[in-house]
């Protein structure tokens, strides 16, 4: 009962917000003299837990490191993380719990499209920041000028669309392909890839050819590959995630068919050549950060790999860097925002145009008043001798 009057007041206010969206009300909570609380929710048990688990680990590691180096203006970071099981219903409840019970300052690096989009209005109407979700959905950074609360959304996840366009562009330029095709996963992610494919071919004046799809979790790609082969494709864009990508290139090899394969960020991971072996040789890929290997890494990346292994007993992967970077970018800009950290001051810091450089050789992250998507460039790599080798950094498909 202690706060029932208060909460009734808050409720009335909430109803007010819902009724009159014009007035922007940013709210600051979760900051004490000693602590900043941030919240996240990811899939740790459902269909995309192979992303959620390492990403959460990465976040935990980053929080530890930030705190070990003295915190942010003397305040320690505290991360509250929940397992939403890739269920938007749970995500809504958990977000609400993070906001109301844990009183988090911001939601940082929540994962998945449906699972971030469903609770997003809640976060916005509470006047809190929704930062760097691990999804490329446009809703997470696109701003409607009529809605001031849209300024609360920031994203720095390199859109699949961008990486795929760059990958296709580079692939076609290199291989002089005449008939590029695409095979894509039939879901929201795949949609990004097909858009990129269509737009890039249009931009390069190359006619579009075969487009085939498969369902998430498919194990058989014979008919898709056979179809593209029969259509005479000479370049294949893989709008798929690691396992399916390997399936596709393996079938192609079995059928003695060797077009140029280009992939984008979901497949631009060390697992791809590791598991796919010879079949993946020569594949071109584009991703947000450089691929690192434990035995060849140096400097901060090496420290990161070792710290990660020490903390969780497993090897770090690309997914872990996404979570790690989320917290690091937050810490970076919170530092810039100064001692008086509020939602407004952090927005100001984020929009200041200052850049953040990660330790993995990724493109610099910076936001502005009109652009809340913090990343615009990517890394191009190619598989040589079973490993990703960086071909070029800081690239973009835009001319």
């Amino acid at each position: 009962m202690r706060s029932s009057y208060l909460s009734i007041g808050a409720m009335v206010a909430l109803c007010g917000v819902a009724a009159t969206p014009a007035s922007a009300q940013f709210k600051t909570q979760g900051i004490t003299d000693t602590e900043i609380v941030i919240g996240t929710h990811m899939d740790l048990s459902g269909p995309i837990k192979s992303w959620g688990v390492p990403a959460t680990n990465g976040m935990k590691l980053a929080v530890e490191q930030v705190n070990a180096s003295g915190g942010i203006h003397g305040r320690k970071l505290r991360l509250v993380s929940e397992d939403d099981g890739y269920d938007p219903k749970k995500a809504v409840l958990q977000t609400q719990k993070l906001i109301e019970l844990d009183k988090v300052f911001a939601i940082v690096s929540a994962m998945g499209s449906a699972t971030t989009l469903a609770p997003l209005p809640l976060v916005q109407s509470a006047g809190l920041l929704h930062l760097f979700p691990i999804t490329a959905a446009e809703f997470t950074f696109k701003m409607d000028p009529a809605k001031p609360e849209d300024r609360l959304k920031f994203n720095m996840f390199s859109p699949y669309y961008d990486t795929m366009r760059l990958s296709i562009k580079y692939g076609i330029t290199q291989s002089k392909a005449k008939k590029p095709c695409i095979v894509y996963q039939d879901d929201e992610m795949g949609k990004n890839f097909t858009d990129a494919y269509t737009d890039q071919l249009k931009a390069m004046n190359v006619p579009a050819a075969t487009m085939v799809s498969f369902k998430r979790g498919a194990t058989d790609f014979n008919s898709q590959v056979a179809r593209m082969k029969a259509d005479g494709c000479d370049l294949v864009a893989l709008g798929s995630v690691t396992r399916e990508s390997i399936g596709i290139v393996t079938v192609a090899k079995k059928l003695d068919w060797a077009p140029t394969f280009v992939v984008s960020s979901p497949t631009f991971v060390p697992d791809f050549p590791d598991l796919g072996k010879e079949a993946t040789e020569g594949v071109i890929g584009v991703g947000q950060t450089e691929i690192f290997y434990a035995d060849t890494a140096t400097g901060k990346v090496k420290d990161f790999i070792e710290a990660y292994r020490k903390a969780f007993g497993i090897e770090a992967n690309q997914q872990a860097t996404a979570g790690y970077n989320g917290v690091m970018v937050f810490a970076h800009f919170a530092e810039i925002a100064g001692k008086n950290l509020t939602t407004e001051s952090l927005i100001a810091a984020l929009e200041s145009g200052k850049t953040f450089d990660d330790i993995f050789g990724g493109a610099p992250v910076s936001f502005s008043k009109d652009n809340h998507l913090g990343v615009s460039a990517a890394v191009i790599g190619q598989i040589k001798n079973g490993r990703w080798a960086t071909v070029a950094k800081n690239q973009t498909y835009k001319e």
Partner: protein
Amino acid sequence: MLDFVQQVIGGIALGCVYGLIALGFVLIYKATEVVNFAQGEIMMLGAFLSFTFIATLGLNYWFAFLLCVISMAILGAVMERLVVRPILGYPQFSIVMATIGLGLVIRSLVGIIWGTDDLRIETPFTGGVVRVGSLVLAQDSLSIIVATGLLCVILYAFFRFTRVGIAMQATSQNMLAAYYMGIPVKRMFSLIWSLSAIVACCAGILLAPITFIHANLGFLGIKAFPAAVLGGFGSIPGALAGGITIGIVESLSGFYLPEGFKDVAAYVVLLAVLLWRPQGLFGSNALKKV
């Protein structure tokens, strides 16, 4: 024409994958009339165990295979003892739900124990292909076709001719009467769960080179479901026939039909067959005596 034949062969290989998983469903259903929703997860567990034996411990493939089969047989019996035995005799619906719970538990445990990365094992079949003229068939697919065929024959004979096999069917048809005949019903249940875990384990190991070993491997069980139903749940040759039918349908529709048809073709065929034969291709349709 060559494309067509190649697609059909690919479809058969794919269909045997479904058939092999479906066999596990059918076994338990035939002997206990329970649909085991944890079948896919048990298969996944088998695959992860094989990873530990082959990749982590570096054992010989065949030896590891044997070891894996034995451990899964024990685990199958343990699962039966812990989850199914206490609710023996409850309505099937409840038992089915309990197997869903079991599936969740296995999936989470596997995630906690083996992590979430994709894993790979080297097998004697990895990468090899068999060529007949210009037709190609991967050796790992061939191994699945052979194993599925073999298991089908063995299991069919087991249920058709052996005393224990018939007793299992008797138990599923009337548990009370089975008790009255002195059939050790509980041991039958343990045995069938062991058997089915063995089949699942074989499926997991044979599939590993094609699909890798990962935490979502269990979802493949859902894809094998229509195969089992199409054949007539409870019929062992039916599982194989249903699997191959669906494999070929998927393969051909993926090649010849417009986008999107491949994924639903199997279900459309399934619905069509069920409307024509409500008990599936090989199922028996007994009239109720009143």
